[in-house]
């Protein structure tokens, strides 16, 4: 049974926080949901928070890269936030550099990078 990951809207940014270890179908569902929500909302940015993820394998890594590419075509910028150091080290050794994906260390910085954070005091990166 695949669970749906909530996609929140903050201004013209969509925020997804991946909280659990996802099975592959949920990963694909999320990719589809995000593409639909970008078109539906006209969002200019997407922030994917992976702070809770203990690993990113090639399946999830590909979803992150593909989502960034899809959103670019749909005129939205994607920022990946909260990657753990051990995950980054492992991803590179696995052979995935996620070259086309913008990253930020924290949610705050990710939102700032998009230049349109809903919060107070957030500015352009």
């Amino acid at each position, binding site marked *: *049974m*695949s669970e749906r990951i909530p996609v929140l809207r903050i201004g013209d940014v969509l925020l997804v926080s991946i909280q*659990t*270890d*996802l*099975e*592959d*179908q949920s990963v694909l569902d999320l990719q589809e949901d995000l593409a639909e929500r970008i078109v539906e909302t006209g969002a200019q940015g997407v922030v994917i928070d992976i702070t809770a993820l*203990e*690993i*990113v*394998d*090639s*399946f999830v*890594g*590909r979803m992150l890269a593909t989502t960034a590419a899809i959103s670019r075509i749909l005129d939205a910028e994607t920022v990946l936030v909260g990657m*753990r*150091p*051990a*995950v980054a*080290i*492992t991803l590179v*050794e*696995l*052979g*995935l550099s996620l070259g086309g994906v913008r990253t930020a260390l924290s949610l705050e910085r990710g939102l700032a990078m998009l230049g349109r954070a809903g919060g107070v005091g957030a500015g352009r990166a």
Partner: protein
Amino acid sequence: MITAPAVPEGEQQTLPIASNDDVVRARQLVRTLAQQCKLSLVDQTKLVTAASELARNTLVHGNGGTMRVGLVDKGGRRGVSAVFQDTGPGIPDLELALTDGWTSGGGMGLGLSGARRLTDEFAIDTEVGRGTVVTVVKWTR
């Protein structure tokens, strides 16, 4: 959240790999053992990532199978071993399959080659028409 049970030292545990949820369970069981073995956080992450790739291969390419995991000991050094076994089609050209980026279809082609880099010991036994067994071990430093 699916929680994996703790495993007594020396005992091997076998998990079926027949669905996407089983791949999640496989990751979690390997993590439990890696923590029990006191692998460093980076080594735990590497081993769990390798296990995730190999479990998915067992499911997707091998048409399902099993994962057998346990703590191992060699000359006082402790480690975690994981064996992924299926009775699927086997791998006709192992060298090709171990090439970064090569996939017979649909994947990123980084699972086998990546798992080899991420673990300390890596062995494949495969025969066309009979199946595939991939064994990995990660040792404490």
